[in-house]
């Protein structure tokens, strides 16, 4: 491992509200140092104006996502030693596909708006007075939703997606992945509206199965597989003879 007197050259893509520029910093290396440690060191010792987001520091909240040497990752779960070879530099930039507010902080409003657009919210069919439906863990629909839950809305898949980059309106992997879990939730009553929303010209059919989302999801979800599921489900609804994904 690196010793204390070594330094790492870090360049950061900056934005101050009007202009884009780059700053470079020499950061002392430490054992088991994460990229979030590096960014925090820079803000505390070198440039207090550096803006970035974090909260939990342990890969649970999803707020510290950024582009690290060109790949979207959680900075708190990315060890410097894993992304920087001896003698090379570290380059940090904000997530793609969202407006930059300042430096490494992006405006995630469009990302969350698309969750709503995709009807990525639970539509209840019962009240609290009704008995809870028992869903067995090996239920077929539950199994299909299984691999898509645990999304924490970090925006990494959205940043990795080149279809979003090419088409502002595209709902993107996170919202569609959420829609897929709900389509398979038998307690949910919003299927019709949701399948219409994801069949629009901003919907799941824009996906080119590039698998950027599934490649980079830090929670190892497979949004591309969920989107393929939505494609099948929506097509079955278009065909006169089909109504369910079998």
């Amino acid at each position: 491992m690196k010793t204390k007197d070594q330094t790492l050259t870090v360049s950061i893509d900056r934005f101050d509200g009007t202009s884009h520029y780059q700053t470079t910093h020499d950061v002392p290396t430490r054992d088991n140092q994460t990229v979030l440690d590096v960014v925090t060191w820079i803000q505390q010792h070198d440039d207090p104006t550096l803006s970035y987001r974090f909260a939990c520091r342990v890969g649970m909240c999803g707020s510290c996502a950024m582009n690290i040497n060109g790949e979207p990752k959680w900075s708190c779960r990315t060890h410097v030693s894993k992304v920087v070879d001896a003698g090379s530099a570290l380059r940090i930039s904000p997530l793609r596909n969202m407006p930059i507010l300042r430096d490494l902080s992006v405006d995630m409003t469009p990302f969350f708006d698309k969750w709503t657009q995709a009807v990525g919210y639970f539509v209840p069919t019962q009240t609290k007075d009704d008995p809870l439906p028992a869903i067995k863990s090996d239920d077929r629909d539950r199994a299909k939703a299984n691999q898509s839950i645990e999304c924490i809305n970090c925006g990494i898949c959205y940043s990795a997606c080149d279809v979003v980059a090419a088409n502002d309106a595209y709902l993107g992997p996170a919202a569609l992945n959420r829609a897929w879990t709900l389509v398979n939730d038998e307690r949910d009553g919003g299927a019709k509206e949701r399948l219409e929303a994801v069949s629009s010209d901003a919907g799941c059919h824009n996906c080119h199965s590039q698998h950027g989302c599934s490649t980079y999801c830090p929670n190892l979800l497979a949004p591309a597989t969920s989107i393929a599921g939505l494609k099948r489900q929506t097509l079955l609804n278009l065909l006169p003879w089909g109504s369910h994904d079998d």
Partner: protein
Amino acid sequence: MIDARLYLLQRLTAIAMLPLIATHLILMIVAINGGLTAEEILGRTQGSVGWALFYGSFVIFAAIHGAIGFRTIAYEWLIPNIRICSVASFGLLIVLIGLGLRAVYAVIVL
């Protein structure tokens, strides 16, 4: 950009073309042996209802499939204006169907 119906049309034409393309590939490999001549091509195709249906449907499926693909590529890589891309891809559809059916007519009927 692309909605469920256009997507379905593109996938259906793709599926329909699977056996057609496989046949076309095999035929090309067989026919290129010893060089291509007009007599050889026309000898196979002229007056054949089967080949007329084969190539006629192939042209139409390929034109639809290609035009939808072109529309997406044009939007994502060239001009992010869906109206312009739709008009251009419709133009491509007409050109492909027009020239394609003319070619089928040429090798079957004459």
